[in-house]
């Protein structure tokens, strides 16, 4: 009997342990209690690939001003939103943190400082200052980024495809078919390197085309997320489905849910595919693979409209300053250092390979993908980033991505449109 009691007790205790893991930590509003207050700021960085460059910049900033900047990076595959909550509870809140868009701002709106009067504001195109709270600018655009289908010029030349001429869906389909027919002789495994495993690729980037490639995308996205759009009767939805099908049919279809980011980029970088559905951020990875072919972007063209010939360009992330920090002024100074000094420009362009949002930057990028984006930008062939409006709840990664992956498997158009429709309606009724 006694033994049984013990066993039961032991079982209960262990179970309690189970749930404790799921429980939240005891919340509290501890003030940031770092030593050297005012002299040390903590920047919680989202992009692990710029970690080294950012630390280098921070070291020079410390030399000039005496303010120490500690860079903490959220490693590859790390969930920044979740980690930020932990950092905010850690007792040493970060002074500068990353907001990926309005969705994240909603979560942290009680924490962000007003940046409207900072000198760098006048150097940014107003379209790219999208992160606002009650009309006040609260986000420093870390960089601009663009994505689309990155092409391998060598392969396209050999196949006789001119990337400059791909402007509509039929151009794109034709190019895919031409290359697919010569797959063997070009040594390709597939035409395009795509993935549905990395749910942000289909859920955020691909799906953005549906939301943005139309007149008045802001209004449409708002309606869509409010459940007011009848997806099934929207002709652009069918165009979008056609584009998704094209991407999936001409990629390594069997392994779509297995290919991770590295595998996806490596397949393109080693010349096994002609196209890569990614953005200019892959340049660092491609450089590691010692890629020497010419490359650029072609649009993810879904129909014949002028929007089909454009690529989405936007601000993937903003720095926000923690207004409860005792180091607000030091944090602002660091942001100005990035935007307004030559050292900062050098960091952005030559070390972090970012495309700056600031007009005062004179340096030219050597990165061909950045150049390609600037070219699209100059020609006005850009789409907005609508997906940042739903990253706060990860609608794209959690709800849209599986629908796209499923469509890749069964190709059932009716069900695809119906699922998208339902997902939007469900999102609109989500609590909070």
């Amino acid at each position: 009997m006694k033994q049984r009691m013990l066993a039961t007790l032991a079982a209960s205790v262990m179970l309690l342990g189970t749930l404790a893991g799921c429980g939240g930590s005891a919340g509290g509003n501890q003030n940031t209690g770092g030593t050297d207050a005012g002299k040390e700021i903590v920047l919680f960085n989202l992009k692990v690939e710029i970690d080294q460059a950012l630390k280098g910049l921070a070291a020079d900033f410390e030399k000039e001003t005496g303010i120490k900047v500690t860079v903490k990076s959220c490693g590859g595959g790390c969930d920044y939103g979740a980690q930020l909550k932990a950092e905010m509870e850690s007792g040493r809140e970060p002074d500068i943190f990353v907001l990926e868009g309005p969705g994240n701002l909603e979560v942290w709106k009680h924490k962000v400082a007003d940046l409207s009067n900072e000198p760098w504001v006048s150097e940014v195109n107003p379209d790219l200052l999208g992160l606002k709270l009650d009309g006040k600018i609260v986000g420093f655009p870390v960089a601009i980024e663009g994505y689309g289908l990155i092409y391998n010029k060598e392969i396209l030349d050999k196949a006789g495809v001119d990337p400059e001429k791909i402007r509509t869906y039929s151009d794109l389909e034709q190019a895919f078919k031409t290359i697919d027919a010569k797959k063997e002789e070009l040594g390709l495994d597939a035409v395009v390197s795509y993935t549905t495993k990395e749910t942000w690729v289909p859920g955020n980037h691909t799906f953005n085309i549906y939301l943005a490639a139309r007149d008045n995308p802001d209004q449409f996205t708002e309606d869509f997320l409010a459940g007011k759009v009848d997806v099934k009767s929207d002709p652009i939805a069918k165009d979008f489905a056609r584009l998704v099908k094209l991407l999936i049919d001409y990629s390594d279809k069997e392994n779509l849910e297995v290919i991770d980011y590295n595998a996806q980029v490596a397949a393109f970088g080693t010349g096994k595919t002609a196209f890569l559905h990614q953005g200019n951020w892959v340049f660092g990875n491609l450089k590691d693979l010692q890629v020497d072919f010419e490359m650029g972007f072609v649009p993810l063209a879904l129909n014949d409209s002028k929007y089909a010939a454009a690529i989405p360009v936007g601000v993937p992330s903003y720095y926000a300053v923690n207004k409860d920090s005792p180091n607000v002024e030091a944090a602002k100074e660091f942001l100005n250092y990035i935007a307004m000094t030559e050292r900062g420009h050098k960091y952005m362009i030559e070390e972090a390979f970012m495309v700056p949002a600031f007009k005062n930057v004179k340096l030219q990028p050597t990165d061909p993908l950045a150049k390609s984006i600037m070219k699209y930008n100059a020609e006005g062939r850009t789409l907005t980033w609508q997906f940042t409006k739903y990253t706060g709840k990860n609608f794209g990664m959690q709800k849209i991505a599986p629908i796209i992956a499923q469509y890749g498997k069964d190709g059932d158009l009716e069900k695809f449109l119906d699922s998208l429709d339902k997902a939007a309606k469900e999102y609109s009724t989500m609590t909070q």
Partner: protein
Amino acid sequence: MHKSTQDRLVFWGFLTPTLFAFVMIIIVPFALGVYYSFTNWTGASGASIDFVGLRNFRAALQDTRFFYSFGLTALYALASMVVINLVALGLALLVTQDLKLRNIYRAGFFVPNLIGGLVLGYIWQFIFNSALPQVGKFLGWKFLQTSLLATTPRAFAALVIVSCWQYAGYIMMIYIAALQNVPRELLEAAAIDGATGWQRFRHITVPMIAPAFTVSVFLTLVNSFKMFDTNVSLTNGAPVTEFAGKTVFGTELVAMNIYNTAFAINDMAQGQAKAVIFFLVLVVVSLIQVSVSKKREVEL
């Protein structure tokens, strides 16, 4: 008088630090968690918390994906419980024989358990995605040529394989300890009476090691239910599948579903409600399991 005061001092002196830690990291978060499940808590520090009644529980119980995860987890727990215990008992029987180097075998089987689940998941992901397809191509075996993680049933099997690889060594240790406590004289007496090896195993060894079954089945069951780290690193929910007319992540176990609800979809309170439901189910399952297993034990 003096002595009892001193005793009490020692008692509390030793108890207090552990009790403090236990209360702070288990009791308090648990109570807070239950409280949060009835509120609109967002997890962002400084935001206001309002009581919303059973709304989170209702939403959790209407979530198809949550039900799928629950069913999948039950299946997974059952499968890995059976597989791990069979493999562990097999290994234990093997390494309690008179083998040369048996200590090295024991250590070898135990080592995977020392590797963290996340690392393990990534290593096996590489094996399933890159190594095995190459082997399959070399041998011309069709079923190995695509990754084991490419379809839902196969990815499920992959999860069971990996957790078995990780956990069997640990359970093996429990069985070894139990096997070594089986009295020699019983086995010898049975052998003299003409019992075959299988009869001795079935009628002497198995009843004698029944307490080890209780513990091992409990541990594997509960651990499989709680499985999270390897799930995230190995499959992260992929590939997708269909369930009750909805597209769901095919290998999302319930712990990962709770995590995604709380941290990805950013509905902390609903995630917490799911965790409470999960806890209650787990209590019931474990109590049933322990009481059933207990009946099978014999005492000397």
